[in-house]
Every structure is written in structure tokens, then in C-alpha cells.
């Protein structure tokens, strides 16, 4: 144990001194802070006064424009002829003008004249035009006057007020979209922290094999002590990283909540933060152990790195499948991903985001993850010792099986 801790301390020290580790640890909260500050600054700059009015022209040859001349911050000015409208456009009195031809009601065709040079027409202008035409066409009394309320409903058919009930029929709180975004970010960070630490572990073992210091280490330590020390030390480094990120995230949220109303609803409950840390520890322990095995059996760090995607892919599947998981958190697919050890750390984060996970599911997935980690450690212990001193040659699957059976 004493030697394990010494290895752990050294690994932590070396990792903490690495520039890349320091940069990533500090850069991520810094980026978050900059994003929030940027958002606040943007709001302060743009949200101060009334939105600026733009004026556009139209030439109505179909006689459909009878009512509203204003849509949002766009004013529609009538012109008698195309020539007059064009004069105003060239004089920069209007931004653009539309010619509504006499067969408009049949074809829906409107000609737009603009001096914009961009590839795509302005999106906000287009939607203002739509609203403007809709309001006027509906009130064209030539057919039959449509009541104002019906006009409103055609323009905006529904505002959904979603009420969620639990099993007892009690009302549940509405979904927390800010919280969702937060967990989304947290699961990315979880993946990053796990693979930074586990990848360093793999790299380190490869280096120790390549530069032949392994044999010196093994004359002082057992392979088990070496492996445990490395997993512990690098895990501690990863944990420091994730704790810094979570605490910084808390701080940034608190800052943002005071300034930006959109952030005010987001909160990170302490229990959830602890779960994040727990799943980092469990997930890292499993991936770290697996990576240690890979490091032991592959002759060089480079060859070991080539095997990393095998482990990365299952870890990020839940991330890409998050829409499917969120839409049916208690479905079979979600449950499989929740319980399968390689996918469970990120899946649980994603399901926490959707507030759709039961306590027993968390307990079961944590248990499965723990048991698989212990199993992986047992396997690693056997493989690790047998192959650490095998330089330049990768053992066959049969040889590994041999080592596992302790022969």
C-alpha cells in the first residue's frame, strides 16, 4: 500500500505539472466564463434601446393590402408604381420593396427588389413579409370577413402548456432545459476527464515499456502495486480536474443567473453533483483498468493508442443517442445503456439531464459498474504481470487466455 501511494503521488505530480493538463483544466471553465460574459456584454450592447425600425416598400397590384402596415419592427410603405418604389430604394429610403402582381391570389408569387449583396435573402425580412401578407389576405373582405380571433389562431394555432404527472397523478415540475444543457456539458467533460486520465495511463505504461524502466520498477514493486498506483494517481488528477470544472461551473452559473434571466432557472443540486463525481470515479476506474491491460499487452504506446477507439466508442454512444434516451428514458434501449458498464457513466448523466432515472436504476448501474471494475482489475492483475516485460512482441489471444487461467 505504501508503495502504491508513492507511485500514485508521483503520477499525480507528473500529471499536474504537464502543461497540457493545466491548460485544459483552466481553459474549460475560462471558456465557459467568457461565453457567459460575452452573452451578457452582447445583451447590454443590443438590448438597451428599442429595436431599430426598418422600412420596406410594396406595390400592390392585386388589391389585397387593406389593413395592417406594420409587422414587428418592419414598416411596410405603399408605393404607387414600381418606378417610385425603385427610386426610394436607390435613395436608400427603404431597404427593399415587393411587387404584388395582380394574379397574386392565384399564384402566391411576389417579386422582391433589393440591393443586398449576400447570397441568401434576409431571413427576418422574409418572415415579416409572410406575416404581413397573411394578416392582409385573411382580412381581404372580398371573400368574407374573418373574425380577428380566427386570424390570430391561424397565425399561431397553439401555445402548449405541458403538465407532467407522476404515478400518483400529482403534478411534476416542468422540465429544466437549462439543467439539461448543463448535464449535456457535464457528460462531455466526464468523457474528457475519463479519457485524459486513462489515456495518460496507457501512454505512461507504454513509455515505461519502451524506455525499459519497467524492469527497474518491477524490482521495487509488484505489478499490482504499480498498476494500482498509476490508476489511483491519474484518477486523482482527473478527479481534481472534474471537481475544478464542477465548482467553476457552479460559480459561472451563479454569476450568469444574476445577469441573464435564461440562466436563472438552472441549478445544480448537490446530490447530482456528487453523482457526477461518483460516476467519474467508477467510470474512470473501469476505463483506467482496461487501458492498463491494453498498455501491458501492447509493446508500444503507439500500438496501445490504436486500440483506444474500441473503448471510446461505447463510452460516447449514449452521448450521440441522447435524443433517443431522453424521449424514452425508461425504455429498453435506455435501460441497456444504463446497465452496460462501458456505456453507463455517460448514460446516467444523460438520463439525469432528462430527469428520467429511478434511484434503483442508479444503484443497479453503479453496482454493475463496480463489479465489472473489480473483475477487470482481477483480469488486469493477471495480464499485467505476465506481459509487462514483453518488449516488441504482442501476445496472442491464446497466450492471454493462458495467463488468465494462471498457467
Amino acid at each position, binding site marked *: 500500500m*505504501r*508503495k502504491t501511494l*508513492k*507511485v500514485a503521488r*508521483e503520477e499525480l505530480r*507528473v500529471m499536474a505539472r504537464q502543461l497540457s493538463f493545466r491548460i485544459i483544466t483552466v481553459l474549460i471553465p475560462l471558456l465557459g466564463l467568457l461565453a457567459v460574459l460575452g452573452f451578457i456584454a452582447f445583451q447590454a450592447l443590443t438590448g438597451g434601446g428599442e429595436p431599430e425600425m426598418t422600412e420596406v416598400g410594396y406595390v400592390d397590384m392585386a388589391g389585397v393590402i387593406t389593413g395592417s402596415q406594420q409587422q414587428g419592427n418592419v414598416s411596410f410603405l405603399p408605393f404607387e408604381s414600381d418606378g417610385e418604389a425603385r427610386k426610394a430604394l436607390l435613395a436608400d429610403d427603404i431597404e427593399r420593396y415587393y411587387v404584388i402582381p395582380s394574379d397574386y391570389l392565384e399564384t402566391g408569387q411576389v417579386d422582391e427588389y433589393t440591393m443586398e449583396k449576400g447570397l441568401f435573402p434576409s431571413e427576418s425580412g422574409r418572415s415579416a413579409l409572410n406575416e404581413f401578407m397573411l394578416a392582409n389576405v385573411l382580412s381581404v373582405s372580398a371573400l368574407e370577413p374573418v373574425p380577428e380571433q380566427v386570424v390570430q389562431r391561424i397565425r399561431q394555432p397553439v401555445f402548449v402548456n405541458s403538465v407532467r404527472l407522476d404515478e400518483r397523478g400529482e403534478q411534476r415540475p416542468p422540465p429544466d432545459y437549462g439543467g439539461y444543457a448543463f448535464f449535456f456539458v457535464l457528460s462531455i467533460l466526464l468523457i474528457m476527464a475519463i479519457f485524459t486520465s486513462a489515456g495518460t495511463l496507457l501512454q505512461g505504461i507504454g*513509455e*515505461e515499456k*519502451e*524506455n*525499459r*524502466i519497467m*524492469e*527497474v*520498477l*518491477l*524490482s*521495487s*514493486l*509488484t505489478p499490482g502495486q504499480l498498476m494500482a498506483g498509476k490508476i489511483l494517481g491519474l484518477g486523482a488528477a482527473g478527479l481534481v480536474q472534474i471537481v475544478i470544472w464542477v465548482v467553476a461551473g457552479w460559480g459561472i452559473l451563479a454569476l450568469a443567473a444574476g445577469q441573464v434571466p435564461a440562466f436563472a432557472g438552472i441549478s445544480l443540486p448537490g446530490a447530482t453533483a456528487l453523482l457526477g463525481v461518483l460516476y467519474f470515479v467508477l467510470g474512470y476506474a473501469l476505463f483506467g483498468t482496461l487501458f492498463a491491460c491494453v498498455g501491458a499487452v501492447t509493446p508500444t504506446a503507439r500500438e496501445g493508442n490504436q486500440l483506444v477507439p474500441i473503448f471510446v466508442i461505447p463510452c460516447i454512444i449514449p452521448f450521440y443517442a441522447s435524443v433517443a434516451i431522453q424521449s424514452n428514458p425508461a425504455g429498453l434501449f435506455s435501460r441497456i445503456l444504463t446497465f452496460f458498464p462501458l456505456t453507463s457513466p455517460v448514460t446516467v448523466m444523460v438520463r439525469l439531464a432528462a430527469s428520467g432515472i429511478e434511484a434503483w436504476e442508479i444503484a443497479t448501474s453503479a453496482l454493475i459498474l463496480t463489479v465489472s471494475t473489480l473483475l477487470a482489475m482481477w483480469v488486469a492483475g493477471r495480464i499485467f504481470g505476465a506481459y509487462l*516485460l514483453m*518488449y516488441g512482441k504482442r501476445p496472442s489471444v491464446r497466450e492471454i487466455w493462458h495467463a488468465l487461467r494462471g498457467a
Partner: protein
Amino acid sequence: MSGTRSVVEVERVSKEFSGLKAVDGVSFNVQEGEVLGLVGPNGAGKTTTIRMLLGIIRPDSGEVRVFGSPLTEKAKDSIGYLPEERGLYRGRRVWETLIYLASLKGVDSQTASDRAGRLLEAVGLESSRNSRVKELSRGMGQLIQFVATVLHDPRLVILDEPFAGLDPVNVRLVKQVISELQQRGSAFMLSTHQMNQVEELCHRVVMIDRGEVVLDGRLLEVKHRFGDNAIHVSCDRVPADLPGVRSLRNEGDHWELSLAEGVKPGEVLQALLERGVSVDSYEVALPSLEEVFVRVVEGRR
């Protein structure tokens, strides 16, 4: 040299790798304060034997005792090992590496610092303490590894080809450190192909060939065993009818006298002196260890 207590006892140790006997019933021991030379052709099983001794690999059968009992974690702290395939963390600094490796042997950082400072000075590398390992030359790196091997003041030091790649000045520095430690009672196992180094440093020699011990004895005794019962004499003349002398050959500055069976070298010297021959030098002719090595190995092929 007390030479009374066994530091290492290897008893009928065997190890097989995928059906091939790498080590086959090897037994030998190393006494306190002794320097044992472990020699043998490439692939004879020396490194495997050493690794079993250190508990890096487990023997299939047989027993290894270090400091009187099966290898314990504490015993490992008193062993220094310089493997043949060796290296250091290339990106780390010399000083950090030394202190770390010493800490794995249970040495506190204060003691490690004191000793590291003294040892670096002894091998002339005190100015490199803050260099990164990758900035060092190969020979310097090797000296640093030697320092790391003995930094924790081990009672047993196992050196596998410690002089390979070192210039004569550095070889001398390493030998000085070895001799200091040996005088304080540390035992050494020296595995090397450089027979002249074994002759110079070792008290005893164990030769392994194809996984078996084929020779084990005190250096002089082994040489005598392989000697041809001859003497080298520098003198003005050699009488032709000297009793007990089978044949006589002039080898430039001296004569080689081949003795008949049962004749002791001292008797011939006495006969020479009695005949009034003026003798400048006289020595029992012994084969070099290299000759013994070649003879043993070729005899088994």
C-alpha cells in the same frame, strides 16, 4: 569480507517458457560482502535467473531465499538492480527520477537527497542534476542508472552488464563505488561477458549454460581446476634434466614448464634454486577466465 552469511540462496530453480527450459535446476548462493560473477553464453538463462531472484517472474519449481527467507517486500528494499535492458523517464529531470526511484525503495527524501548528492559527485555528474534525462549522453544516462541502483544503500546489488557503453574513466568510477559498497558489506552479483572485469572484481564465479550451472567456485580455484599444471619462470637458463618437468617451451621473456602428474610447482622452484639458476620471476601458469569459459562452453557443444 566476512563471507559467513548467505545473502542469496537459489535452490534447484527451474523455469520453462512455452515448452523451452530457460532455467533448469539452478542452485548457487551469494555470501555477504562477496562479489559473485554470473557468466555464461547469450541466452544461457542468466537474466531469467536474476528475474526469478527478484520476484519479477515466478519459478516453476525450486526456491529462492534472499537474506535468509523467501523474498519479501522489505527485502526488495535492500536490493539494487541494474537490468541489462534499462532506461529512465526521458522527459524527467535526473534529480526527480533519483529521488522517486529511491522512494520506491522506502528511502525518505532527505536521506535520498544526501546520498544522491554524494553519489552524483562520486561519478562526476553533480552538474547534471537538473538536466532532463534526454539531454544526457548514453554513458551519462548509464551512470545515472547506476547511481539509482545503489542510491538506497542496498545490501545486495545485482548488476547486469554494468560496464557496457562506459568509457574507461567511467568504468573506474563505477568500480570505485562498487568497491566502497562491498567493503561496507554489500554483496554483488555481476552478470557480464567482460571476463577481465570478472577476474578483476569477483571473488567467485558461477557459469550457466543452457539453463544449468556448469561451474561454481572461487575464481582461483576454478582457474587451478582448468590449469595444465604448468609454471612460468623468468630465468637465465633452464637445466634440461630438471626432475618432474615433462616439457619445456621458451615463450620469449619467460619459459613455460609443463609439470608431470603429481609434481607440485614448489618442488620445481626448489630444484631450480638448488642448481644455482637465477630466477627473476616465477608463477603458476593459470588459464584466463576467458579461456576457461571457452573451454567449458565448447566442451558442452
